[in-house]
């Protein structure tokens, strides 16, 4: 468990755009109870905004017709829901067993040196954020990195360097 209790209040209202609105309406028909839409709606929000604000949670609760506390419960429990904006390039390095055995630490250390951030941090210019995550289900091609959701397998410092170079 990790402490994820802090929410950010933006002071701005939130609503789904037309595309997400349609997707919400399509999905809600697939479940016998509306509460089942809590996770899908949080995903739709994150797709749209990149993260989930206090206002977005209130909106989701309203859309579903449930208590805001239920949305808050889910949003804070599931660690993939970003409760704050992430960097333009969000890098996740797997830190679990097989990636650890195959030297994931070298990649983390390289990133700390190269872009000056440690796991859990966002670079000052907002371009990069780094996170160490648990097993990503790609242990046979360890170590593994996810960049904005895309998998990069059999990584090492050279490949990480090359990957960063494509971003500049």
């Amino acid at each position, binding site marked *: 468990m990790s402490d994820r209790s802090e929410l950010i209040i933006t002071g701005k209202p939130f609503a789904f755009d037309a595309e997400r609105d349609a997707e919400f309406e399509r999905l809600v028909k697939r479940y016998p109870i509306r509460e089942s839409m809590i996770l*899908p709606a949080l*995903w739709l929000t994150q797709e749209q905004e990149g993260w989930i604000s206090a206002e977005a949670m209130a909106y989701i609760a309203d859309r579903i017709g449930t208590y805001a506390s239920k949305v808050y*419960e889910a949003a804070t*429990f*599931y660690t993939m829901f970003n409760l704050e904006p992430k960097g333009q390039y969000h890098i996740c390095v797997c830190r679990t*067993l097989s990636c650890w*055995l195959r030297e994931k630490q070298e990649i983390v250390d390289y990133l700390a040196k190269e872009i000056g951030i440690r796991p859990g941090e966002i670079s000052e210019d907002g371009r990069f954020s780094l996170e160490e995550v*648990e097993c990503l289900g790609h242990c046979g*091609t*360890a170590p593994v990195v996810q960049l904005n959701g895309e998998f990069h397998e059999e990584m090492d410092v050279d490949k990480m360097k090359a990957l960063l170079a494509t971003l500049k």
Partner: protein
Amino acid sequence: MEVKILSEKFDIENAHLLEVAKKHGAYSTLDKLFAMEPAAVTEEVKKSGLRGRGGAGFPAGVKWGFLPKDTGKPTYLAVNSDESEPATFKDRYILVRDPHMLLEGIIICCWAIGCNDVYIYIRGEYTTQVKVLQQAIDEAYAAGYLGDKVAGQDFRVDVTVHRGAGAYVCGEETALLESIEGKKGQPRSKPPFPAVEGLYSSPTIINNVQTIASLPFILTNGHEAYTAYGTEKSPGTHLFGISGHVEKPGMYELPLGLPLMEVIDKVAGGVWKGRKLKGVIPGGSSTPVLTVEEAKTVTLDYESMAAHKTMFGSGGIVVLDETVDCVKLVENLINFYHHESCGQCTPCREGLGWMKKITKKLLAGQGTLADVDLLRELCDNIEMKTVCVLSAACTMPVRSYLDKFRHEFEAYAIDNVSADAKLQGN
């Protein structure tokens, strides 16, 4: 040694597309299926001896038999695609390389158990994988394999993908159901078992992706074709994931029952860099470690693993070379399970945290022999005192390292040299 039963279409280009998959036999069992009584399908699966591939190895057909009859409520199928147990990476090959095999298996299961509504629970990190799966579902709907009339029959199957969001515990079947209901993933107390009272308080079957994907082969070829592979109590084939310190890590489909060392040496290219073997984790990070001696006699099936006081688990084999520091490895394991604890039960939430602190202390060169004993005692005190077995998934392996590699823990306590200092050669 490798076989191609489940992985038959894995190397075919674009086999995730319906047109290609159909050319290679996808959905060809449906005629046979709908000519059979549902009970006969369950019987065939029972005879095949197919066991759950999610980790627990429970016979699939037997589980289906637990569903109560005539409850007046719908029956649900939840397909477990959470794939989060460290060292497990097999189901995603099915999702990406042959999703129609999974969908065909779903239709078979639905017919057998009388189910119309299916949820595939897929871990949130599988971003690219979920797209391929959804595309396959959309194609299957368009072609009439899913929807109100499956292959023209008066039989409805609706499949919905439900994405998780980074919680290992949601692989536990009742936490998974909670998550589909929109709640945080905290496992439920059993009984009632999900077959009686599961999703939305209705009868529910939860099966792993690979379990369901094994059905088309069994139904097409008959149970004897399946039991021709493997051992008497562990029939069939399995998608094994081999990772860690081997030359050729990867996913390999093998019949059950092969000698572990032969698989490591011949299939996975042996221990990497010419190094010596230290131990093997046989079935995902939660299974007790095997020493070199034990690894030499074990075979890859449920019985032999049990006889060696470990588990077949999810078939995720991790090879450890001579350089591995078992105390550090245990720290890595405890960090994972502690991080993934749902927080519901005190022994798990607090106990794993306590174990983490002790291990850290040992690694800092500040521990004592009493700490090593305490760590061992905690394992016994946490296990089986929680709603689900996530805590045991941590204590079982940790205990095995403490018992089989105790000298490494004691060395930290006696020498009082930290891991960092050791690295620098002090």
